[in-house]
C-alpha cells in the first residue's frame, strides 16, 4: 500500500510547520512576553510553593496587591523581597476598590511602590458576585490612561463595556470566564467568542473563573491572548504541577488557534479511506 497517498500532501509532517518554529510573542504594556499564562500570588500554602510554581510554569507576569500596613507587621517585608527575586513583571491590582476614585488613588500608590505603570484595574460593583462596575471601570480607565498607566481592565463578557474600554485606551481587556474564585470555567463561550471577533486588535486576557487547564486551553483556542489564573493553581493538590499543567494548556490552546482547527460538521464522516474497504459487497456468511 502506498502510504504517501494516504497523507495530505501539504501536511506539516511532510513540509515542516512554520508555526512550530516561529516566535509568537505577546506584546502588551510595552513588553514582549513569550509566556501567555499570568499567575496570581494569593492563597498558596507557602511562599516557597508560589516560587516553585512560578519556576515550573516559567511565568513572566505576577499579580500583586496593596493592603493597609500595620507597623508591627514585619513578615510582609520578607514576602515582598521574595516576590521581587522571582524576576517577573508585576501587575498590581486595585482589588477591593468600589469606585473610580479609590481605584485611581490606589493605582498611583501601586505605581510608586512597585515601580511599574501597569495596573490591573478592578472596580467591584457587587460584593456578592464580585462583578465589576462597568461605568466606574471605564471612567477610571480614561483617567489612568491619561495619567500614563497601562491599564489591564477587569470586566465582564459584556461587549459594549469592552468596546468602551478599548476606546478608552486600555492596554488589555480582561473579561471574566466566571465569577472570581469559582473555578466554574467559561460560562458564556458565545459571548467570549463575540468579544474576540469584535475586538480583533485588542489584547484580550481571560481573568477570573478558570478552574482547570482545559478551561484555559478552551479560551486560548477562541483566540484569547493570555489567561490569568490564581485560585485554580494555588488551591490545587500540587500547585507546582498544576502551574505547569496550566502553562502547557495555554501553550496548547494558543498553538491550536494558530493551526486553524477543523470546522465542526453536523454528520459523521469517516476518517479512514473508504476506497478498498475489505469485504465490500461480500455477502456475510
Amino acid at each position: 500500500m502506498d502510504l504517501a497517498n494516504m497523507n495530505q500532501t501539504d501536511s506539516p509532517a511532510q513540509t515542516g510547520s512554520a508555526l512550530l518554529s516561529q516566535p509568537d510573542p505577546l506584546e502588551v504594556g510595552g513588553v514582549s512576553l513569550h509566556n501567555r499564562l499570568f499567575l496570581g500570588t494569593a492563597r498558596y500554602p507557602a511562599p516557597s510553593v508560589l516560587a516553585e510554581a512560578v519556576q515550573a510554569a516559567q511565568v513572566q507576569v505576577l499579580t500583586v496587591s496593596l493592603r493597609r500596613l500595620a507597623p508591627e507587621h514585619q513578615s510582609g517585608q520578607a514576602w515582598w523581597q521574595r516576590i521581587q527575586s522571582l524576576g517577573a513583571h508585576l501587575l498590581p491590582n486595585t482589588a477591593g476598590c468600589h469606585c473610580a476614585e479609590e481605584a485611581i488613588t490606589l493605582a498611583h500608590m501601586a505605581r510608586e511602590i512597585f515601580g511599574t505603570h501597569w495596573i490591573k484595574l478592578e472596580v467591584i460593583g457587587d460584593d456578592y458576585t464580585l462583578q465589576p462596575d462597568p461605568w466606574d471601570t471605564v471612567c477610571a480607565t480614561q483617567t489612568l490612561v491619561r495619567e500614563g498607566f497601562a491599564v489591564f481592565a477587569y470586566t465582564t463578557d459584556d461587549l459594549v463595556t469592552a468596546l468602551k474600554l478599548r476606546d478608552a485606551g486600555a492596554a488589555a481587556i480582561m473579561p471574566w470566564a466566571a465569577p472570581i474564585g469559582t473555578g466554574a470555567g467559561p460560562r458564556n463561550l458565545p459571548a467570549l467568542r463575540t468579544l474576540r471577533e469584535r475586538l480583533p486588535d485588542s489584547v484580550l486576557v481571560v481573568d477570573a473563573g478558570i478552574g482547570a487547564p482545559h478551561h484555559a486551553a478552551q479560551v486560548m483556542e477562541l483566540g484569547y491572548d493570555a489567561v490569568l489564573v490564581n485560585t485554580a493553581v494555588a488551591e490545587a493538590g500540587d500547585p507546582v504541577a498544576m502551574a505547569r499543567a496550566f502553562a502547557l494548556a495555554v501553550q496548547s490552546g494558543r498553538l491550536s488557534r494558530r493551526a486553524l482547527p477543523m470546522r465542526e460538521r453536523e454528520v459523521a464522516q469517516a476518517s479512514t479511506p473508504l476506497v478498498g474497504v475489505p469485504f465490500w459487497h461480500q455477502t456475510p456468511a
Partner: protein
Amino acid sequence: MNVSAMPSSAKLQIQLNGEAVQTQSATLAGLLAERRFDATRAMACAVNRRFVPRGDWAQYALQPGDAIEVVSPVVGG
C-alpha cells in the same frame, strides 16, 4: 498651612488606616515616625483618598479629620 506655626503640644484628631488616633505630629512624615512605621519599607500613602508621593511626606501638613491610608505590598489575584 504653616507647619512651623503649630505648637508642639497641639494634638490633631485624625484617622489612620481606619482607626481614630490623636497625633502631635504636624506632618505626614512626623506621623509615620510617631506611629513607628519603618519608612524604608515598601509603602505608600494617601490622605483623604488622594495619593501623596513619598517625596511630599515631610512637607505634607496634617489637618484635623484627615483620613490617612498607609499600604504595603501583599499577595493578590
